[in-house]
C-alpha cells in the first residue's frame, strides 16, 4: 500500500522540480531552435529564456514567474493500492499545491472565476486539477506535475466541430489558423509545443490535445503512420509562417506538434488544439508500491 504522506511528498517534489527546472527534452529543443534562428531579436528571446531557466535550476528564481494552473496527471496500475483509497490523491494534490505556494514555488494565481476572490494557496473548486487514468497491471503510481502557464492555456486553446466533408484538409487549415492566432505577437510564448486532439467527444478531444501538448516528449511521433505524417506536415508548415520565438521574425513558432486521436461519431470530426509554452514545464515522480520515489524529467 502506498502511504498518503508518500504521495503528498511526491506531488510536492515533482511540482517543485517542475517550477524550477525545464525538462531536458525541452531544453534540447530550445537549443536546437537557437542554432537555427538568425534574427537578432529571435535569438535574444531564446538566449534570455535559457539563461533564466539556468538561474532557476541553480536556485535563483523560477522557470517562469507565471506558474499557471497546477495540474497533476496520475497513472495507476490495476494493482495499485493507496492509503485512504484513490480519493486521497485529490487531498494530497491540494496539500502539495498549498505547500508549494506557501514556499513561493507557485504564485497564488487560482481565483474564483466570477467573484475573482483569491484564497492565496491555489486551492479551490476544481483546482488543483488531478487527472487519473489506469494503465496496465502494475502496483505503482506515475505522477506528472505540470504548472501550466497562463499564456499558452489562455491564448492557445481552440476547439471546433469539423465534419467528415472537411476531411484532413479541414484539420490542417484549422490547426494552421490556431497556430497563427496563438503565436501572433508571442501570446502563447513560442516556440510552442502544440497538442492536437482529433475525434472523441468535445471533452475527450480537448483532453487528447492537452495530453499531447503537456505530456509527450518534444518531437515524438504518433505510432500511426498517417497521423505521424500529418504531424510532420503541420510542423513543417508552422516553421514557414515567418514567426519565431515570442512572435519575432523567425522559424521556430512551434518546436513540437503532437496529435492524438480517438474514435468519434460517424457524423463528426472534432478537432481541439492546446498549446504548451516554450518552457514546457512538467516533471515526473514514479512511486513504487514499497514507497520509493524517483523523479525524472
Amino acid at each position, binding site marked *: 500500500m502506498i502511504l498518503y504522506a508518500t504521495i503528498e511528498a511526491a506531488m510536492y517534489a515533482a511540482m517543485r522540480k517542475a517550477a524550477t527546472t525545464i525538462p531536458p527534452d525541452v531544453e534540447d529543443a530550445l537549443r536546437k531552435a537557437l542554432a537555427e534562428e538568425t534574427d537578432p531579436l529571435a535569438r535574444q528571446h531564446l538566449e534570455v529564456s535559457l539563461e533564466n531557466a539556468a538561474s532557476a535550476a541553480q536556485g535563483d528564481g523560477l522557470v517562469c514567474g507565471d506558474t499557471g494552473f497546477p495540474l497533476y496527471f496520475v497513472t495507476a496500475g490495476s494493482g495499485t493500492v493507496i492509503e485512504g483509497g484513490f480519493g486521497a490523491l485529490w487531498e494530497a494534490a491540494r496539500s502539495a499545491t498549498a505547500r508549494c505556494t506557501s514556499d513561493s514555488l507557485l*504564485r497564488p494565481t487560482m481565483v474564483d472565476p466570477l467573484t475573482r476572490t483569491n484564497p492565496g494557496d491555489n486551492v479551490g473548486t476544481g483546482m488543483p486539477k488531478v487527472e487519473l487514468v489506469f494503465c496496465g497491471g502494475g502496483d505503482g503510481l506515475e505522477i506528472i506535475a505540470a504548472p501550466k502557464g497562463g499564456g499558452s492555456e489562455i491564448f492557445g486553446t481552440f476547439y471546433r466541430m469539423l465534419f467528415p466533408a472537411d476531411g484532413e484538409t479541414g484539420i490542417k487549415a484549422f490547426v494552421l489558423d490556431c497556430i497563427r492566432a496563438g503565436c501572433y505577437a508571442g501570446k502563447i510564448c513560442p516556440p510552442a509545443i502544440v497538442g492536437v486532439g482529433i475525434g472523441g467527444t468535445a471533452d475527450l478531444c480537448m483532453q487528447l490535445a492537452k495530453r499531447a501538448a503537456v505530456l509527450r516528449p518534444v518531437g515524438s511521433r504518433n505510432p500511426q503512420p498517417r497521423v505521424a505524417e500529418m504531424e510532420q506536415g503541420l510542423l513543417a508548415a508552422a516553421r514557414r509562417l515567418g514567426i519565431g520565438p515570442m512572435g519575432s521574425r523567425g522559424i521556430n513558432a512551434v518546436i513540437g506538434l503532437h496529435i492524438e486521436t480517438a474514435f468519434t461519431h460517424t457524423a463528426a470530426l472534432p478537432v481541439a488544439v492546446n498549446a504548451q509554452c516554450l518552457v514546457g514545464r512538467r516533471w515526473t515522480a514514479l512511486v513504487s508500491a514499497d514507497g520509493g520515489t524517483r523523479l525524472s524529467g
Partner: protein
Amino acid sequence: MGKTVVDLQLPLSEEDARGLKLGDMVTVTGIVFTGRSRFHIRAVEESILPPLDFERINCFFHVGPVMRQEDGQWQIVSIEPTSSIRFERYGADVVRKLNLRTLIGKTTMGLRTAAALAEVGGVYLSKIGVCGNQLARQVREVRAVHFLDELGKTEATWVLDVERFGPFFVAMDAHGNSYFEQLGADIRSLLPEVRHDLGIPEGFKLTNVNACEVQDLTHVRGLENER
C-alpha cells in the same frame, strides 16, 4: 546580443518617448508601479487608483510578481511580464487618465492603446524571452504595496525602484506605430504558399452549419479570427 541598449530615466519625458523607434532596445531606471486586469477594471469602472503621484511614478508595468516575505521585508522571487493585450478594453482610458509615457508588458496592445500613446507621447515596451529572474535582480527596492488585502499578491499594485531594468524592445512607439502590426503584414504575405503546400485549395472554407443567417455567432466556434 543584438542592438545597443539605451537606459531610459523614469519618469520618461515626452521628448525621450517621441525619440524612440520600433525595435529599439532599452532598459529603464527609476520607479515603476504594477497592475493587471483588476487594476484596469477598477481604475476605469470604479475610479479606484492607488495613492501615487502619477507625474512622478509614471511607468506602468503589467505583471503579477512572485513575492516572498522575509523578516517583514518583501523579496521578489521572479517577476515575469504578463500579456498586455488582455487589457485592451481599458488600456487607452488608463493611458489617458494617468498620462502614461511608459507601459511594460508581454506581447503588445491594440490600436486604441496605440492611439492613446501617440496622444500623450508614450511607448509600450515588450519583454525579451522569459526573463523574470533577471528582472527580479534589477529591482533595487520594493517601495510599497497597495490593495494587498483586497486583491492578493498577484493583482496588487507594487511600487518598485528599478535599475537598468530590462532589456525590453519598443513594440509601440509614441507615433501610433506597432512592431507586431508591421510584422503581421509580412506574416500574412507568406500564408498563401504555406497553405498551398499543405494541400489546402485557394478559398477553402470549413463547413458552416449556420449558413448566413447567424454569421454574428462566428465567435462561438472558438476561432474568432477565421477568414
